């Protein structure tokens, strides 16, 4: 099972004042994601990382090239490619269990099978107790757990995660990192993970893809040379993170130079000089 992007590009039409502008989100790009891999995509905002994920999810179609999973072209969404979004997006009128079951119902599974699978995956995210609760009774982190269970219940070949933890507080995020790492090892699912959090990407991934400032293209694909499971406090990991950080900063600066006033750079550099001598890695 491998995922291939071949010369995939994507542009959007933006309707602003006057004439519509065409925004090139992705320059033609090719890459491969391996079977069972934990693959992260990071880059500055607007670099097209979410677009890349949406193309793979089948929520958007590419302008050129093609995306294939096991040599089968992606044509629209499929339960083989489940998605976890930044927002949990649980349906507030259904119980937690019904939310997890809904996708299975659409696939025509029997009621018993559905309930059984919902139980299994709610257990995997440690929320069995809340099967009959309503979503509004859960915290943000619990909602995101349900959203992960809902995706896993489809028993997909690929799990796509689009900044799944960026709306959560730091403690909850840390706990969920470990959960995702464990689930990935238990299920052997390929995970494609979009984030702007470098530490998160390094901690979880086999390989991290760094994207350039828009229009997005591949800057580098970096293997993370540490065995799973990893320890968050590891200094190797921190050092590695800091190195990646410098590479991404180049791209972030390019975006800032386009968007901000001319004096931003001096102010930012002033701060960097003031911070020199402190441990850069630990500050991330």
């Amino acid at each position, binding site marked *: 099972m491998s995922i291939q992007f071949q010369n995939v590009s994507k542009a959007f039409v933006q309707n602003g004042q006057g004439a519509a502008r065409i925004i090139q989100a992705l320059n033609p790009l090719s890459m491969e994601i391996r079977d069972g891999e934990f693959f992260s995509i990071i880059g500055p905002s607007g670099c097209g990382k979410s677009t890349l994920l949406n193309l793979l*999810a089948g*929520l958007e179609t590419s302008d050129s090239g093609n995306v294939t999973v096991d040599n089968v072209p992606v044509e629209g*969404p*499929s*339960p083989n*490619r*489940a*998605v976890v*979004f930044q*927002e949990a*997006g649980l*349906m*507030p*009128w259904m119980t937690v269990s019904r939310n997890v079951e*809904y*996708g299975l119902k*659409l*696939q025509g599974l029997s009621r018993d099978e559905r309930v059984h699978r919902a139980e299994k995956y709610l257990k995997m995210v440690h929320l069995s107790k809340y099967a009959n609760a*309503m*979503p*509004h*009774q859960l915290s943000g982190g619990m909602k995101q757990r349900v959203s992960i269970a*809902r995706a896993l219940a*489809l028993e997909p070949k690929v799990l796509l995660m689009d900044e799944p933890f960026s709306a959560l507080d730091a403690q909850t995020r840390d706990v969920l990192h470990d959960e995702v790492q464990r689930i990935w090892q238990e299920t052997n699912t390929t995970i494609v993970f979009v984030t702007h959090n470098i530490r998160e990407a390094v901690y979880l991934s086999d390989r991290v893809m760094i994207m350039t400032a828009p229009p997005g293209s591949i800057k580098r694909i970096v293997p993370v040379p540490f065995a799973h499971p990893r320890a968050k406090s590891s200094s190797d990991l921190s050092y590695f993170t800091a190195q990646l950080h410098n590479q991404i900063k180049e791209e972030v600066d390019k975006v800032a130079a386009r968007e901000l006033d001319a004096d931003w750079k001096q102010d930012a550099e002033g701060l960097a000089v003031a911070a020199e001598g402190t441990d850069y890695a630990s500050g991330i």
Partner: protein
Amino acid sequence: MNQTFKIILVKVGFGCVLLALWQAVASARFMPAHLFPGPGDVLKSLMDIARDGTLWTSIRLSMGRMLVGYSISLLGGVAVGVLAARSWLFKETVGSLIMALQSIPSICWLPFALIWIGIDQRAVLAVVILGALFSIAIATESAIRNIPPIYQKVGRVLGARGFVFSRDILFFAALPELIGGLKIGWTFAWRSLMAAELLRADQMGVARIIETGRSYNEIAMMMAGMIVILAVGLTVDLVVFGTLERRIRRRWGLEK
């Protein structure tokens, strides 16, 4: 003291003050008693029309018209609203037309209805339908447009599309806002019906109680008619729509 209890107490107290004021003005005899009757006289008149059956027949007839007229507006309004939310072309054409028509009080259509449809029940129904249809259509369109885009994405990746998506997700996601629109539609329909009944001497109905009172120069009966209109309107608003709205909002977690 319990907050709810406090609110009820204040409301009941205010009601009593109003009644006392009314009685005081009536007793002061600024006008002859038959021109400005007190609450006692109005209550007596109310009991009279209840006893001779006028009250119940009127309510039954008016509510019958409301049920038929409102049901038609509901089906038509929701259908038009869904189309306007789904189709850009439909929204810019029919949608704009409906926005414009919404500014015309539906009672203004009564003279047309009388000529085009005929001097009978159906002309009144047409006014009721027009009273609610446009506002329900506009509310439906807005409720659908305000659905958070995440449901669209979640629905698609889970495999819900077309009719299944509309039935399972779109409808429920729009429901909390939609129910508010349906309530406003009901209020518009009720007002339109009252206006139409006032103008149409051939039909019995709640608003006719006022007109009948006027023709006998019985102001107590006219006031009784006003109270009936208020009571029926408020009952449907609070009991039917209020309960429905509260239940939905509670289940959705929009209020405790």
